[in-house]
Structures are given as C-alpha cells and as structure tokens.
C-alpha cells in the first residue's frame, strides 16, 4: 500500500537524516523503532508531505506523495512528535476547525465525529478549555484525536504515547486497534513494548538506514538461544564491559542485569528468552559495531 523507495535526505548542516530508506508497508499497524536522532521524524514528516527528500519516491495506493501532496493530505491523519496549538481556543472549537480543513464538510457529521473523538480520548470534560492550557498528556490526547479526524487511510503517529500515563496509553492502544485493518498506520516510537503489543510489522531505523524489518514475533524467534544474562555488581559490570559485547543492561532491584548475545553461554551467564527489546538492542549494537569497524 505504502511504498517508500530509496529515500535520501541530507540536512544543510551535513546530517544524513535518511540514507536510502526503502520500505514496503502493508495495511495494518507498522512500528518504526529507533533511537533519538535515527531519522524517524524525518521519515514521518516526509511521508506526511511536510518535507521533501533529496531523492527517492513515495507511493501511497494511487498517489505519488511527493508530486501530489494535496491528494495524500486528503487521506492523511498525522500526529507530529512535538506540536503546539493556537492560544485561547478550546479543544472542541479547534477540533471542529481542523475537521473543516480535513474536509468534513457536513456540520452534523463534523459534530458527531468531534464529540466522539473527544470522548474516545477522554477529553470530553475538558472540551471547552483552551488546548494551550492543557497538561502534556492531555495535549497529546488532543493530538491523537485530531489525527483520527475524517477517517484517514494513512495514519502517521510520531511518538504518540510520550507523556501518557499507563491507563491512557492502554486506551490509546485500544483505540488504534479498533480503527480497522485496512488502514496503514505507522507508529514511530522508541518504546519497544508499543511495537510488540500492537504491530504485526516493524522496522528498526538507525542513522537514517533501515537496520531490520520484519514481523516482531519472527525476528524475536530468530534470536532464541543466543541471549544470555547475568546479574552483576557495578564493579563486575565494568569488567564485563571490557571483555564482552553487551547488548543491553537493565537494573532490577538495584543491581545490573546484563544481556549478551552469543552462540554459547559465556562464563556465569544463564540462558534468557529472547524478546523484542533484545532484537532492537542487538540490531543497534551491531550497526554501531560495523560502523566503528568501517570507520
């Protein structure tokens, strides 16, 4: 449905934001994982017609996104990573305003959709307050509501769960799942759980390139039997850092639990079940290593 090929973008300060990104995204939810600065937002903005790449193409169904931006915008729902709002306008009014811009021209339809989305994002009680006075989480929910206006075919949400409390995050996940399977929903995040919970397809983006693409369960399965863990003290941790390729460390009850990827168990390590986080970290780790080797 959404075909991205050979997308390249270099910013004027020399940063290579996108480096030949090629992706084929089917209907359904697609998770885009990557650390800060990996180029996720650049990719999202490019798909959302807000920035032009240096080269490459994007095709959504019958629409050439780069040369017919208005055609895509009619089918697009977009939640930017970071956004502000006009001052002194209530949520309901602002949502109504955006609904008109999106093309909900019938006022009864518009009212129903706006009110429905306010309820779904749990903003109903706050609908006549200025969005500019909202707390971070509330504003994020407003952002979600506006992205869903007008039943878009392509929904791009950039770090949607940032700032949401667990309850709201769950509510949002349910909302996304309920939207239907025929839409393309791209979810960019650095929270691995969002992807493992929601997405049948995913990709990992690092330094502007796609490092990994696939089904989360499949890619996790492929690591089975190669992940080892050990609980260590701070001093031991420092030693291990010298000798082993640590893919991730996590604190549990104040002590370090180290994950290592290897064919065989290093000394004192126990076998651990692979999860998506291991996949993500190992992918990044590998990318970094090849990078430093080639450098």
């Amino acid at each position: 449905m959404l075909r991205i090929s050979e997308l390249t973008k270099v910013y004027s300060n020399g940063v290579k934001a996108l480096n030949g990104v090629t992706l084929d995204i089917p209907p359904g939810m697609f998770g885009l994982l990557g650390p800060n600065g990996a180029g996720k937002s650049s990719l999202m903005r490019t798909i959302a017609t807000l920035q032009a790449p240096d080269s490459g193409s994007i095709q959504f169904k019958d629409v050439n996104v780069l040369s017919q931006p208005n055609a895509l915008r009619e089918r697009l729902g977009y939640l930017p990573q970071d956004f502000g709002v006009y001052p002194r306008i209530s949520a309901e009014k602002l949502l109504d305003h955006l609904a008109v811009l999106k093309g909900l021209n019938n006022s009864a339809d518009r009212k129903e959709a706006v009110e429905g989305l306010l309820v779904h994002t749990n903003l109903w009680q706050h609908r006549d307050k200025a969005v500019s006075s909202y707390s971070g989480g509330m504003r994020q929910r407003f952002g979600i509501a506006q992205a869903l206006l007008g039943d878009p075919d392509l929904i791009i949400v950039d770090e949607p769960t940032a700032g949401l409390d667990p309850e709201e995050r769950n509510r949002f996940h349910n909302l996304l799942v309920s939207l239907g399977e025929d839409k393309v929903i791209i979810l960019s995040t650095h929270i691995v759980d969002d992807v493992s919970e929601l997405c049948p397809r995913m990709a990992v983006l690092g330094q502007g390139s796609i490092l990994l693409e696939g089904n989360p369960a499949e890619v996790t399965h492929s690591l089975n039997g190669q992940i080892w863990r050990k609980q260590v003290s701070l001093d031991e941790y420092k030693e291990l850092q010298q000798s082993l390729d640590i893919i991730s460390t996590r604190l549990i009850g104040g002590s370090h639990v180290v994950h290592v990827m290897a064919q065989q168990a290093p000394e004192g390590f126990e076998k651990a079940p692979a999860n998506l986080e291991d996949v993500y970290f190992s992918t990044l780790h590998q990318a970094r290593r090849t990078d430093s080797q080639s450098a």
Partner: protein
Amino acid sequence: MLLKSLGFEAKYLIRQPSFFVTVAVFFLLPFLATVSDNVQIGGGGNVLYNGSFAIAQTMLILSVFALFLLVNFVGGTATRNHTSNMSELIYTRPLNPMSYQMGRFLGAYVVTLLVFAAVPLGVLIGTLMPWIDQERVGPTQFSFYLTIFGYIIVPGFLALGMIFYAIALRLRSMMGTYLVAMGLFIAWIVTNSLIREPAYRSITALFDPFALVTFGEITRYWTVFDKNTVAISLTETLLYNRLIWLAFGAAFIFLVGGLHKMQWTSQGKKSRPSKASRMPAPVGNRINLGATSGHQVQKFFTRLGFEMRQVLLSPALIVLLIFTVFNLSSIYFVSPGAIYGTPDWPLTKNMVAAITDNFGLMLFVVITYYSGEIVWRERGSGMGDIIDATPAFNLVFWASKIIALWAVIASLYVVGMLFTLLFQIAAGYSQFEFGLYFVELFYINLIPWCLMGVLAFFIQTLSPNKYVGMLILVAYFISSLVFQELGLEHTMWSYGDTPPVPYSDLNGHGWFLTAFNWYLIYWAGLALVLSTLGYALWQRGPEAKLKQRLKLVGYHLGVKGKMVLAFGLSVFVATGGYIHYNTKVLNQFIGAEQGLELRAQYEREFSQYEDDNIPVITDVNANVDIFPYQRRIEASAEIRIENKGEQPIERALLSLPDHTKQWQVEIKGVTVSEPIENMRSAWLTFEQPLAVGESRMGVISVTRAHQGFKDRGFDFEVAENGTFINNYSLFPSFGVDQNRYIVDRHERRKQELPERPRAHKLEDDSRYQESFFGKGVGFINFETTVSTAGDQIAIAPGYLQKRWEQDGRNYFHYKMDAPIVNFFAYLSARHDVIKDEHKGVNLEIYYDPKHAWNLDIMMQSMKDSLDYFTTHFGPYQHRQMRIIEFPGYRSFAQSFANTVPYSEGIGFTANLTNPEDIDYVYYVTAHEMAHQWWGHQVGAANVQGSAIISESLSQYSAIMVLMERYGKDKMRKFIKYELDRYLSARGSELLEEMPFMRSENQSYIHYRKGSVVMMALLDRLGEQRVNQALKSMIDKFRFSDNPYPTTLDLQAAFNQVADEQEQAFIADLFERITLYDIKIKQGNVVEKQGKFEITLEVEAKRFVADGDGREQEQPLEEWVDIVLFSEDPDTISVDNQVLYQQKHKLRSGTNSLVIELDQRPSYAGADPFVTLIDRVTSDNIIKL
C-alpha cells in the same frame, strides 16, 4: 555574583539574532541619513552632518525609538526565566537575589547601550564616506558624540531600563511591558503636542524622559555657527532632568521591582468546573465519518473567520487602535491647518490629512509586524505540522491571511475616521462628507497599503523565518528611500507607489485620480502575480526549502492559477506600457537629478546673457480663452515692446512657459528660432534692430494644453474649478529666467557651478532701474478679454467693461485706467460673489459657496485698510478691490493690481470663533491690501533688501490696521510668534543670515524680523513719525521706475524724522544683526512715608552676530522701557494696570535704577513688550 550574572546575561543577549538585527537597523538609519538626502532624521538646513546639533538630533530622535529596544532586552531579561520555564531551576539555587537580579539587569542594559552605540557609529562612518559633500563635513569631534551619549543616553537608558525591568518583573509579561512602554510613548507624544505653547516648554523640558524637548529648549535659538560647534553641557535643566529620571528609576526598581524576592508567585488560575464538564458524554458517536475531498471554499471561509478573530480580537490590535486614537488626539491641541495658532474649521479634507499624516510610519510598522505574525502564525504557535498536513489548498491560507492583514489596516482607518467624525461633531461642525472620507481613506490610502501587504507576504513566504522576513522588509523600506539616487525615480519603479492625489475643496480630486487609477491597476496586476506565486510557494512543513517548493509551483497553481498569473502579468505589462506612454511619451518626465542638471546647464549656457538689453513690454491687450473642463487655455496678447536700454537690441532670449507646446511670437522684423532643446527657450533675432527708445507692436499667442497624465510636475494653475495663472506662467517672456537657477549652495557645488550671490549688492546702482519683479518688468497699460466655461466667472485685473455670453461661454472684458506693474493673473471658477462699497471703492469677494465663514472679516479688513492707508500713506490708485479664492494646491495670497487671489487654505476656512486667537484672516487681508501701496505704488530696485520694502512695510501696515481693531494687547501674542519664528529660523539658514536692510529674499527676515524691527521703530519713533517717513517714501517713489527705491532710501526716510541717537538705533536695526540680552536680576520695594521706592538691578548686554551666527558682545547704550505692573503682565486681563512706564538709558553691565511711586507695584519689567530682539524674554519680568 553581580559581575558574573552581568557577564552571563550580556553574552547571552549578544548571541541572539535580535542583537544583530537591531544593531543593523540602528546603524543603517543614521548612516543612510548621513550619506543620502532621501533619508532624514530631524531637520535639515545648512548645518554640518557631523556638527554638534546634527549628531545630537539624530541620536536623540532614535533614542525615542530605542525605548522599544530597551523593553526588548531589559524586559526580555526580566521575563525570560519565566517564559522559558527556567524559573524553578534558577530560584532553587542559593543566590543573593539582589546582586543576581541587578547583574542581569545591568547586563541587558549594557547590551542595549552597545546596540545604541551603532547610532553614533553610523553617523561617524557615514561622514567618512568619500562621496558625500565634503563642505558639509567638519573635523570629527568625538566630544559631540560622547557628550550626547554620556550625558543623555547613558543615564536616560539606565533610568528607563530600571523602570521597565521593574515593570517586567512585576507583570511577568512582555506584552504587558510593551503596553506600558507604548503608554509612555503616547503620553510623551501628547505632551509634546501640548508644549508648542511656549508656556509649557520649560516644565516639559524638565520632565522629558528622552531629553529631546530639553535639548530643543537648549538649542532653540542656536544659530548655524552654534549648531556646528557648540557641544552641550550637563548643566541646569538637562542636569536636573537626568537626576529626576535617575532618582525615579532607582525608586521604581527598588519599590516596584522587589529585587530582594526571588520566586514568582504561582500564576495558575483556579479552574472552576464549567458547564461542559457537567454535560454527559455522548455515547456511540461514530468517529470514522469520512472526509471528502474538495470544499476549498468552505475551508477558506473557516480559515478567514479564524484569521479575522485572531487579528481583530488580539490585544496587540487593541493597543494599536488605542495608540492610533492617542496619536490622532493631537488634533485637539494642534488643529490641522492652523496658522498663528488659529485653528481651521475641521473640514473633512483636514481630518483626512491628519489621519494620513499620522499613519505613514505607523503603517510600515504595522505591515512589517503583522505580515510576519500572520504568515508565520502556524509555525509560531507550533501547530504548523498539523495544519500543513491538512488537505486545505495553499490558496486557502494565502487568501484568508492576506485578507486578515487588510482588515487590520482597514480597522485603523475606520477608527481614525470615527475619531475625526467625533472631533468634527465636538467642534460643532456638521458638513460631514462621507463620500470624501470613503474615497480618501479607503480608496486612495488603504488600497496602496493593501498592495504593500501583498509584497510583505511574498517576502515572508520566501524568507526562511519571520525575523529574516521582517529584516528584508525593513531593508526594502529603507532602500526604497534611496531608489531615487539610483535613477529609479519614476513612480513605476517603486512598488505600490502612485503619483500624489492632492485634494482641494474647490477642485475636488481634479484630474489627479486618473493617473492614480492607472497606477493602481498597474500595481494590482503585479500584486496578483505576487499573490499567485506566493501561494504556489507557500511553505508547508518546517523543512520545506524554497528550492523544493519551486518544483511544485506548477502543481499548486493548476490551470486556473496559471491563467490568473498570466492575467496579472498581462495587466501589469499592459498598464505599465500605457503609463509609460502617458508619462514619458505624451508628457516629458524629468527626474529630480536630471532636473537639477538641466537647470545647471541652463545657467551655464545662458547666464552670460543676463545683462543683455531686452525689450520691455509697455502695453498688453490680451484675449484669453479658458477651457477649464478641457484644461486648456488659448491666449493671444497684442503687446507693445520698447527698448528702454542704452543699446539697440539685435537678439533676445525668450523663456517659454511650461505645458505649452504651441506658441508663437510675431513682431515685425523679428524671426524666432526653434526652441532650444530641453531649455524651454528660444532666440528672437531682430533683423531690424530695435533702436534705443523705439517701440514696436507684436502678438504673442500660446495654447496651454494637456495630453494624458503625468507622473510628476503637475499643472496646478489650470484646474477644472479654480484656475489661477499669472502672465509669466502663461506667456513667453523676454530675457534669462534666473528663477531657474539652482539656489541651494550644496546642489550648486554638486553641479560644479560657481558660488553665486542671491541678490545684487545694495550699492549696485546699475540695478536701480530694474524692478524687483525682475529685469524688464515695468508698468504697462492693460486691457483684456477673457472667456471661460458657462458656469464659471473669469477675472483679470482691471474694471469690467462688458460681460456677455456666446456659444454657452462667459466673456468678460476688463480694462485698467492707469498703468499697472506688468504682473497680472487670470482666474476662473464657479464662484459666488459678495459686493460692497466703501468711499467710492467697490469691494468684491469671489468665494466658494462652501467657504462663506469669514467674508465679513475680509470685507471689514479691506475697509479698515483703505481707511488707514489712505489717511497715512496716500490715495489708493484703483476704484475697486477684489479677493478671489483659489484651490489650496498653492498656499498663499498674492496682490495683483486691484486683484488679490487668496488660497482656500489660508483664511477662508479659518475658525475664528475663539476671540483669544489671532485673527490672521483680517491680518492677511490687510497685508495684501498694503501691497497695493508697497509693491504696486512703490516698487523696489532689484538689489538686496528689495523684499523689505514690499513685505516688511506691508507687515507693518497690516499690523497697524490689526492694532487699531484689536488693541495693543493682542499684538504682543502676534509679535512673540514673529520673534520666535525669526530666532528659530536663523538656524536653518542655507547660506548666510543678512542684516535687515540686505535681506536676500529671506522670508524669515523680510516677514518675521520685519514685524519685529518695524515694531521696534514704532516703539522708538511713535506712529506719527514712522508714518511720516513712510509717506515721504510714497511721495517720492510713487509709480517711479527710474530709479526704484532701495532700503537705503528707506533708512534715509527714517533718519529724516529721527534724532541722532535714534538714527544710531535705526542703523543697528538696519545694518547689523543685533541681539539683546536684558534681564532684571533683582527688584526691591521699600515703603517710605506712604511712598514706595523701587530699586531694580537690570543687566543688559548687546551682541552683534555675523552671517553664521557667531556673536560678539558690543557696548550697549540704549533707551529701554522700564515698566511697573500691579499684576502679572503674563495674564492678560483688563485689571492689569501699568503703574509706570518710562524709557531708561541702560548701559552694558548691571544698571541700578531707583523709581518712586505712590502705589505698590508687584511686577517689574525691562522691555516687557518685547521691542528688542531678546532670546530669553522670560527674565525680562520679575516679581517684586
């Protein structure tokens, strides 16, 4: 701590873009003002670019605008921790709040000073530029820069900075702080309008925060010499002013600012449960209702409503509107069109002029600010990504936003109009002209500004961010001021500009709207092009680079867009061609620079013929047909010419009038050459030389006509309603036209012309046969037949012999029964007329029916003048006097034989209902009447001082008539005006101030000083002796043209009636620039046996100044009025009694006087009625 936070703050601010932007602006403005004549800050005149006065004026005027600089930096510093959400981080640190805050304040203050230092730097570097006129640059004196910076700017910014730091800390809002600054600015402007009244000057000088008024007071009567060489000192008023503001600032920052406290108090408002929160949530709403494509019109209207609410309901606009109203409220204090402080009726044209005068600069600022604000609203609010990703077309945004900007500009005009309507109602004026308001404000003024808004939008669209866009726009505005220097003078090159559309109550908009309309269509075409390109290039998304947007131009335009673009382009090109054809092909276009070059060329080519003998016209019989609605005059004059010189005439230069392509001169035995290209001249060759004393008949005929429209150089003399043209404008004339020479010394130098005296030397008796009207202008016998349109009356000098109608046109035959000066005029308009008769003289006033307010006063003035002048000077030479109103394109009254054309702007519309105001209508009428004696009976030789005889004596005559009617009390107000204007005008002298009798057509001498000098003579010699002397002038020189009188004759006439001491006094008035400083230092009253002994210490000095104003003290020995009053003489009331008035002889230095009196006086004055030229008249009076 203090230094650390100072350093941190300063470094932070210096890295901000606003620092560079403001430095650039504050450097460029004074720089351009120095290097280009088209940018001016403050007044011009003959002062050096880097003289003390010019530097100070530039710095002080810009310092007023730097108020907003100060608020930007100091206020920004005060609020930044809050706005950037840093306050919690900062205030939890263990800091000494006092030194932390003071340090930050001082940091911001130092940065502001640093920015402002760009101003003196701009002037300094400007004066070093090689291309500027070196004669106008003196040696660089750093003290001129440093004194102003050190004495006024440094303490002033500190004081205001403390105040605004405190306010910003308190309000925690930049907007609020700007509001307060705006309030101060407004209050300052309003007070400044108040202080034109001399009574308030000293008090405002003391309290002016910018010390601009203070500086104005210090330098009020500075001469050119002073302005170039005297640096100000920090004494007296200036010192007190600075101390007052520093004390005020310090008090403010400690009391209001609360520096010792650190934390912000919580700002959050308690939220009350709203109605919405109680409504139950709807259940089961569908959220997947699909959007449909299209509906761009609906999107547009939604956006439009939104943008309109954003701009029209914003606090910024409310501030702006309040500012506008305050700005306009100055018309309450200084009435538009006021003369001598006497207001005009609030005619709609005056109201409109007040609005447009007030709006000029403000609209630049409004457009710059709002275009940035509106175009970048989405980016600025952070909502850009969401809005830009919606399927609304670019055009939706462009159109809704530009209309919002237009609405802002229009709202200013609406408020301006409502305010002036209220003003008209309050003044009891009810002839509302809504049509005129509409056309002037919403068509002629609003639309060009709207087009300017389109350009601003276009620039903002291409610009990478708001501030760069604003900067480009400011740079554009500034550079458009210097376009002229690049040869891009034609209005076609200056976006949004149109030729002016002057308005006259008589003639309405005349033909000027035609040109305006075409230019408007021309620019609208370009604006349409800019609009289509602008929306096609509209930036969507934060990273949409221009290069990439260019690729999608075709996509966004679509077929319709491309058609509109092509349409706009073809309108622009087609009307451009039409304008070019009209202004440069049908009419000649001469730019300012080219005009000067032509004038220089004219002088170089023809000045050698200045003294050639030329024929003198002695008889004129002219047929003049005026076609006002076709703007055409066909005229032919039978003339008799005579050789009054001493050589036969073989060749003579003919100067041709403007706007006259068809002309003919037929004189027997004379051939006429083709016009000399670009010189508006031709040669007459007398194949049969005109022998000395010989006279010959001839015919001159012209057709003055207009084709198409012009860009500049309009013909104001032929109008649909209100034609007024004199013979030199209408007909070719003999000899070199010296009025075409360049006068300005600097311009002459640029054209490499030699220095040239403005007038012939007073002693040059070879010029005594030459009239001050010019060479070859003598007395003529005059007769004329003039015709005009069927609904108009045509007037020319002479008595009406016959009036008839023919082919729907009115014909008038006028004939003069006695010779008149060869200076006559034709007038034609749809006039009403009132007639009266006084002692055998017919009096008539031809006026516009709308302007019937002051006819009685004019009539009375004519009668009183006739009485006074015939009694004291001699008989009136005509049997008739006529006043004729003409359009206010030109603002003067002028005396022709038995005919006075009188501009609508200087009396017909004056509001004389307040008896306290000077009745200048009466006065001007008397002045013009007096010219029938001074000018028409007694001419003047073409040497220095010629205008003294015509103008100063007319001033005197008019003052005497005015004094008879209104009494001496009212004259004091008038004379004080004249003295003040004379003293102030000395500083703007272009070449050299001449002594009274040698005035070289310097109006501030022959009018202003003339009044004062004549009043001094009146005081010293008395009315009887002055008039006796003047009568002797009349008796001797009445209708004499060989010789004409000079000021030497005038002085001799006065000397005739004066004793030796008085003659010395007259010599002082006539021959030297004399200034006095009379001051009562002390006054005591002692009671002695029922009598009062008053001792006065009077200090007296006398100075003689040279032409630059360099003064030297001279010994003084003068009879001066010493007056004792029972009440304060400044409150003019009936009870105020003069208990004692006697002339005492004062000598240089301190004079002790003892006077005995029966009554106790309370005030003493030395020359209290201001008969001597004294710069400080306030210390002439003392309370005892």
